[in-house]
């Protein structure tokens, strides 16, 4: 209804309320665009004009490892998140409303709980002497504690935990928009449940999966808190490295260049997502 409704009947007398955008544009222009551009400038002027910062970043094996790590983690997190989120979203889309609202409550609670709180919980849960290792040992499954923290395992568990709601919620929307009649028709046509899943349900939900997956991937690429707390020093991720370059090493040139690379990659993927689903849906509804 939106296009119809927002036009109303009255033609706008002034080019409607462009002035209303002014505060937002000033805020974003002055305190977002300008600082980010200044950062970009710094990456090619600090300590001396030129591209040496980028050359250093792209030429060095240590940094290459960080880039590789970052993409690897983001990729693994995305795959795992999609695989876990799909069945849940599927059930959420069709289960009785009373049950669904309980599940939604749990998802919202997890999503709204302070990020550090959640990460702290995982730190305690996953540590060598933590609950999970003890439980596994107690059950006789392992006899040495598993290294669950300060490595990629820890980062992946923590990140999947954080990303799940961002994947589940939009997917529910996609799945709810599919007419159950289509699948009934498929069954009448003789499709087995597996065939109906592969040929009907999955293709129809693919746009939602792609959009959600891309969003999770983009968010994971630049994530800072969870990798910094659950990851190890030997497999640092990009955001953490940038923070360290600025905060501990005070190397503004290198840090800015790395930040700019992250910005370009993120924005390129964001643009791809926009093309995939359109601006309105890319960042999700309310």
């Amino acid at each position: 209804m939106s296009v119809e409704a927002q036009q109303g009947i009255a033609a706008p007398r002034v080019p409607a309320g462009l002035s209303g955008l002014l505060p937002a544009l000033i805020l974003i222009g002055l305190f977002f665009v300008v600082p980010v551009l200044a950062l970009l400038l710094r990456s090619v002027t600090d300590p001396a004009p030129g591209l040496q910062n980028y050359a250093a970043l792209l030429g060095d094996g240590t940094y290459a490892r960080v880039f590789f790590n970052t993409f690897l983690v983001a990729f693994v997190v995305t795959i795992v998140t999609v695989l876990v989120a799909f069945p849940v979203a599927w059930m959420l889309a069709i289960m009785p409303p009373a049950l669904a609202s309980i599940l939604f409550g749990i998802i919202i609670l997890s999503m709204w709980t302070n990020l550090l709180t959640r990460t702290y919980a995982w730190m305690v849960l996953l540590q060598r002497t933590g609950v999970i290792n003890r439980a596994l040992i107690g059950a006789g499954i392992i006899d040495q504690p598993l290294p669950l923290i300060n490595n990629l395992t820890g980062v992946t568990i923590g990140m999947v935990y954080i990303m799940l709601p961002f994947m589940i919620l939009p997917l529910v929307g996609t799945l709810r928009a599919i007419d159950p009649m289509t699948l009934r028709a498929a069954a009448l046509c003789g499709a087995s449940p597996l065939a109906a899943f592969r040929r009907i349900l999955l293709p129809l939900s693919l746009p939602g999966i792609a959009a959600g997956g891309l969003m999770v991937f983009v968010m994971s690429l630049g994530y800072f808190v969870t990798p910094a707390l659950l990851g190890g020093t030997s497999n640092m991720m990009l955001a953490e490295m940038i923070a360290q370059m600025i905060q501990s090493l005070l190397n503004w040139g290198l840090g800015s260049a790395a930040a700019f690379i992250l910005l370009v990659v993120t924005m390129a993927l964001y643009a791809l997502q926009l093309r995939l689903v359109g601006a309105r849906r890319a960042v999700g509804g309310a």
Partner: protein
Amino acid sequence: MLLDYDRLGWLKIALLGFTALVAAFLLLPVVFIVLLSFGSSRWLAFPPPGWTLKWYQELFADPSWIEAALTSARIATMTAILAVTIGLLASFALVRGQFRGREILRGLLLTPMVLPVVVFAIAIYAFFLRLGLGGTTIGFVVAHTVLALPFAIIPIATALEGFDKSIEDAAIVCGASPLQAKLRITLPSIRIGIFSAAIFSFLASWDEVVVAIFMASPTLQTLPVKIWGSLRSDLTPVIAAASSLLVALTLALMIVTALLRRKLQT
């Protein structure tokens, strides 16, 4: 039949089982942290050897925790007010305006939500160092408002898109001035969106870690910065106590939201 809940057969049992596991996974850290905060072991042993309230006592005995919480509340409240006000004005223009480049502007205003926070954090940190705004309340509020703005615009713009402008026009023929019509008819009609915007932008600031880590000064620390600092030094159960209070706050917020929504919708 895959989308008919009652016709799934054994598949339903398998999927529901999996869903229950995921729900448990989502709930695990939240419940765990609350239990832990009442456990008596300083080394966070679980299940705890006994139950105690001493971590809460320690928490409340330390003025720096209280201070940090108050600072966060102050900054988040100002951020929410600013973001909702600016977002409201912007949403009207974005939804109702008919000018070229509208979609591009919308994209621009929503970008802070997509750009990795760490990039914005060092950019605004450097910028504020130059302006002398680093470590100030104003600096915090401005930076957080940038981050919160998308969270304010999205629900308000969505609500406004669903509101039939003819209703506002009807108020105008009835004799209300355009401003009166907006204030008395349109705003109350999209109040759910405005309310969501307020909650989301409050949370965006209240939970914000990365910018805060860079901007914080010894005299101005938000709650996440305080937790972050403690996490890096040791995993004291006091953090669990503080975290449990945050969980309680989240729950309270969820309940208020649900109640208000129900009330506003009828």
